[in-house]
């Protein structure tokens, strides 16, 4: 049961990174390239927009139902970054929808543009900051510690922000690939191809900084990753895919690039998971919250599993149907 729940949780995170990530990334691309990206972005994400963010809700529900102590600890120690993420999700979601369904375009859209763009970037960064804080090992559950130690130190540091920027770049990279498949004009194709390449170079650079900072700050993740052969293999695999993807971009094999990039992102996530899991949160006192010691009672897992099995049987075919209608048709 636990294995199945973790599997669904992983799938939810994977799809959220790909689809939700494409969505955040779209806002980030708009931030850097301006109004000319608006139309291709609508074309790429509008029909599936509503669904992309359901993955996050699914993941949150699985965590607070199946692993309540993890949800609770994160809610307390990472209150501030999580609150910023929430503001971002609400603001960018409403700005995108308001802009999209508005009846005509006029000067007011400037506000929607900037709310959508800035909150896309900020939310993506703080999602990464939160992830970084789970690895960083400064989460403090001692109620006698001061405010700084309990609520700021776990996430406010160079390492967590480097992870934040890395995540934002992954999202922007995914988005540029996603839009690339929808672009029709040769000019657009060229533009987003260059963009995708730039984002992938930045990703490698920031990724190295993340590892460097992990080493310098003695983040437990670093030694864990070093000692895990699966992590090594996955990270090397993701790097090897890079030139393959560049070639595919040059040859304009758009469907193939999407699959390759999905595989690449999957490998990066696998490399992370192989080092980190079963630990989900590294605490300041050296203890851990893991998939085993933070798990809900058997009865809860049993009913959660039933819900997830039935849910998967309903959701996955419907999602396939939705994507078949809007994404796979020539």
């Amino acid at each position: 049961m636990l294995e199945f729940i973790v599997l669904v949780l992983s799938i939810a995170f994977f799809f959220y990174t790909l689809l939700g990530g494409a969505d955040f990334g779209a806002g980030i691309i708009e931030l850097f390239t301006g109004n000319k990206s608006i139309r291709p972005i609508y074309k790429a994400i509008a029909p599936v927009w509503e669904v992309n963010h359901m993955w996050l809700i699914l993941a949150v529900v699985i965590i607070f139902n199946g692993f309540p102590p993890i949800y609770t600890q994160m809610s307390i120690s990472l209150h501030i970054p999580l609150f910023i993420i929430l503001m971002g999700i609400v603001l960018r979601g409403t700005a995108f929808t308001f802009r999209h369904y508005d009846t005509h375009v006029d000067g007011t859209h400037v506000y929607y543009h900037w709310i959508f763009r800035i909150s896309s970037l900020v939310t993506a960064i703080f999602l990464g900051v939160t992830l970084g804080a789970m690895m960083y090992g400064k989460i403090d559950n001692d109620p006698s510690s001061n405010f700084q130690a309990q609520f700021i130190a776990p996430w406010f540091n160079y390492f967590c922000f480097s992870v934040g920027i890395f995540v934002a770049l992954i999202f922007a990279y995914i988005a540029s690939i996603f839009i690339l498949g929808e672009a029709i004009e040769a000019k657009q194709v060229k533009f987003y191809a260059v963009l995708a390449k730039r984002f992938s170079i930045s990703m490698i650079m920031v990724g190295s900084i993340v590892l460097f900072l992990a080493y310098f700050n003695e983040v437990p993740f670093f030694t864990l990753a070093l000692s895990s052969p699966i992590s090594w293999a996955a990270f090397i695999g993701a790097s090897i895919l890079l030139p393959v993807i560049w070639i595919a971009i040059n040859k304009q094999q758009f469907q193939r690039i999407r699959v390759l990039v999905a595989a690449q992102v999957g490998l990066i996530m696998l490399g992370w998971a192989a080092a980190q899991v079963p630990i989900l949160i590294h605490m300041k006192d050296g203890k851990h919250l893991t998939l085993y010691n933070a798990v809900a009672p058997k009865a809860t897992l049993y009913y959660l599993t039933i819900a997830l099995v039935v849910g998967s049987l309903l959701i996955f075919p419907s999602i396939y149907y939705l994507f078949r209608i809007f994404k796979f048709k020539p």
Partner: protein
Amino acid sequence: MDVLTAARLQMAFSLGFHIIFACIGMTIPFFMAYAEWKWLKTGDIVYKDLTKAWSKGIAIFFAVGAVSGTMLSFELGLLWPEFMKHAGGIIGMPFSWEGTAFFIEAIALGVFLYGWDRVPKWTHWFSGLIVGISGLASGILVVAANSWMNSPAGFEVINGEYVNIDPLAAMFNDAWFSQALHMSLASFVATGFAVAGLHGFYLLKNKDNEFHKAAFKIALTFGTIAAILIPISGDIAAKDIAVRQPAKLAAMEAHYHTEKGASLILGGIPNHETQTVDYALHIPYALSFLAHGDLNAEVIGLDQIPDDEEPPVLIVHFAFQIMVGIGSLLALIGLVFLFLNWKNKALIYHALFLKILVFCIPLGFIALEAGWTVTEVGRQPWIIYKVMRTKDAVTPMPGIQYSFYITLFMYLFLSAVLFWLMKRQINAIHQEYPIINNKEKID
């Protein structure tokens, strides 16, 4: 402002905001599915335009509901971590089903909004129906989780540990049915009357507009059916509360003294000093009858509730009066609608009746918020009734007042933008579907 007050206010505003969008999002799809069905059956283009116009509104309301719902799923932990630590494993099940239902709703909405030319007509209609059904299902499931806080079940507390967890018993607790039924009906009443009022407003300007006439009638029919049924679910809920949560009932009624043959108190201002309700109307024996189905039954008063377990009487009493008052008024208007429709169909578009409906636009939602105030404030000081106090569940994080101010400002801002956006949307309908204004000429 202390952390507890700030956390309660932030939760109240977040829920209060979300509820409106959730209700509209789970109700209008049924109006839409009905309108599209009429179009498919009769071929009357007015119904197609109506379906399209409503679906645009739904898309906006759904998105706002989805993001404010995402916010709530985090706020449960951000504000009440101690509650979620124990409750997460017990009432997570309805949430996991709710997640599924919500997911299906989003997928079906995607097909509905963007699939007009891509899927067969009846598949399109069916996807709209699925939006409504799964929306309603997720509403019911969330209310089931809330009802557990009023009627905790499916666990035991031994030495501070929550053990012997039975998620099924927790979900199907004693309160889930009455709360879910009452809420679903309330959602149809509030949305039905609000939508009818809105189209009524445009009918006052343009009385022969077939589009608004059709919309008005469909929305008001749904609203009326629910408004006539809702006293029944209210009665079921009240009888349930009388047995399970006597403190809440006593606060709703401002019923200070335990007595047999208790009278029902209408209106008035509860006076805590004298333990009486000033300026109120008393209906002898009615409370005993309504609460227990027996004119002479004993109704527990606030005198039997320990001082530190007493809910804020003033707020709960007022909120309850507002809810019942509005509910009765809307049921009455519903009956008038049925009478007019039976007497002479043209009468339902009479200017005076339309004006009354325009006045009713916000009423259903005010009643809805008041009803939730009764449920939530009436449960205080408990977050899990008789198990955990709200003050013991709140986050140790200081400075929650700032996050409350930010949240409040953001939601007020979004409401203002949305109001303005909807106005643009409705004004545009007339330009986008010229047939709406000129149906007679085209015919």
